[in-house]
């Protein structure tokens, strides 16, 4: 490892401070005993207790979790299927269009996605609620999943599937017994990514939510407009925790994924010599 120069240390410190100081302050103040957000009055976990007794927040948390789990699961299934189609079918007419269409929502502004979905739901006269948020989140999260999964699939050696077929598997059982276990880390990290994205989303949820389905970010946003409370700080701290957990697992999995890939490549080379 190269030694760090003074300049490097300074810029690293500033960079990290810039990124994480606001969050750090938020976390610290969530343990503030005082009701006044800006006045430190000693350490307390009081607001976490309050939070647990706040029905509205708990409801929102439940909605968020429900939306997160269902939409990321759906997105994982759909995204994996799309990735398969893109990687495996080779050149079919309209492939470029199809892949473009899959990746476009990645760069589409949330406001547009949200608005478009809202119009759709109004158009087909669908009552807005948890279902619509789930659908909306599935729509944008599946793009992310398909990106993650297809990058794994493109390096997947199809002769493994052929070997499975050769040994008597049906195409479906070859997928279940060979392909899926091997690409599982990518699928799981796709799911985690989808889940964190869903947890994070304010804009699209606001467009597609109904009166009885408020997600946590929406709840926080509306609460903050009335003034920041220590309770919100506590809640945000918990969310940071959950998201950080997801991100850490995601990066561990993708790291393992790359390590596996390297290993496989090495094996492949060995195998042929």
């Amino acid at each position, binding site marked *: 490892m190269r030694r760090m120069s003074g300049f490097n240390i300074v810029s690293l410190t500033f960079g990290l401070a810039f990124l994480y100081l606001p969050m750090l302050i938020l976390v610290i103040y969530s343990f503030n005993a005082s009701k006044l957000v800006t006045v430190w009055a000693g350490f307390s976990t009081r607001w976490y207790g309050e939070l647990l007794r706040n029905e509205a927040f708990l409801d929102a948390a439940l909605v968020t979790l429900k939306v997160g789990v269902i939409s990321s699961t759906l997105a994982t299934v759909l995204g994996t299927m799309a990735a398969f189609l893109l990687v495996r079918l080779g050149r079919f007419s309209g492939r470029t269009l199809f892949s473009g269409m899959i990746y476009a929502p990645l760069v589409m502004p949330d406001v547009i996605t949200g608005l478009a979905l809202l119009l759709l739901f109004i158009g087909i006269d669908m009552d807005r609620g948890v279902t619509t948020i789930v659908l909306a989140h599935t729509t944008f999260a599946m793009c992310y999943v398909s990106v993650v999964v297809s990058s794994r699939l493109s390096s997947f*050696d199809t*002769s*493994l599937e*052929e*070997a*499975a*077929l*050769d*040994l*008597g*598997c*049906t*195409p479906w*059982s*070859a997928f279940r*017994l*060979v392909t899926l*276990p*091997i690409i599982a880390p990518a699928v799981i990290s796709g799911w985690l990514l989808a889940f964190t994205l869903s947890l994070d989303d304010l804009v699209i949820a606001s467009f597609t939510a109904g009166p009885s389905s408020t997600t946590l970010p929406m709840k926080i946003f509306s609460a903050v407009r009335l003034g920041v409370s220590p309770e919100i700080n506590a809640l945000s701290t918990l969310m940071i925790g959950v998201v950080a957990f997801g991100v850490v697992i995601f990066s561990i999995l993708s790291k393992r994924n790359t390590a*596996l890939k390297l*290993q*496989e490549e090495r*094996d*492949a080379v*060995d*195998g*042929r*010599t």
Partner: protein
Amino acid sequence: MPQTVFAPWENPDEKPLIQFRNVTKKFGDFTAIANLDLDIYAQEFFALLGPSGCGKTTLMRMLAGFEMPTSGKILLGGEDIAAVPPNKRPVNMMFQSYALFPHLSVWDNVAFGLKREGRDKSEIETRVSDMIRLTRLEKFARRKPHQLSGGQRQRVALARSLAKAPKLLLLDEPLGALDRKLREETQFELMDIQEKTGTTFVIVTHDQEEAMTVASRVAVMDEGRLVQVSTPDRIYENPNSVYVADFIGDVNIIEGSANQTGDKVLVNWAEGHSPLVATTAAVLQKDQTCYLAIRPEKIAITAEQPDAANVVQGEILDIGYLGNISTYHVKLPSGHVIKAQSANTRRIARRSFTWEDKVWLSWSDTAAILLER
């Protein structure tokens, strides 16, 4: 009691197990297999030989069902198998790249095909442990493929393909990564399995000695075509072209022009040298270009001028000592370099020839094979 020789290809009533009928396989506009006709009979040990990229793997993949012929038909037991998916074919293939399942242990890799058949547990266990013993993998049964050496992986792939004892077994370079001793043992194991189970084997190999040892028939391929299909001894003794002669074993090729009288042909091969004599059943035109193929071991090397149909003199250029035999590279005044082999029946210290010795090379008129192309 006369022993019946296994030669179903000579019996016109015998039905082939596999029939390729005008099979062509194209990848884009590249032709990998060109209009190929081939019959393989049940219980054969059929070897495919040919340079890299000549289409051996492609041929096997069509049999296994991973590639469809662009045109033509493949029949298995008389039935067209175009519509049968790979998992329904009574065919197992050992992949050139092994294609071991990285997430499964050696044991589970070998058991994979048996489990799909839904056989009962104890039967699977006996079968798998038999296969593992056969391929000497007992110590590694619990390991994952990435914890094995190249040769060990190759043995796992072999064990996995043998486990289901299919009607037809396709082995794509099954023994390339094994050391010589293990390779020879495995060759005999394969022949043993073949004898016991009556499985038909199609095997790809780059090692012509291996093909000679194990195969009932050998096919020599070149650029998607079959050049010659015959028994190992006939391929070796009666190659049909310079390509085959050169591909199988060591050979001296001398180009010349023919002058036929009866079954004897005089080949004019160099200015100022008397013509070489060979026998042939073919009919050649006068002065037609032809090639003499002479195996090094059929050429005698002597210090005195011998009395033989073909005699040439030269000077030893190089000696290759291979233990049991020595190969002498002898340069003729015409510029040709001829390889001659002699068995080392005596210890090396008393070897009779050395570099730059003048020696006589001789061979009989039946030793040389006359080839037209």
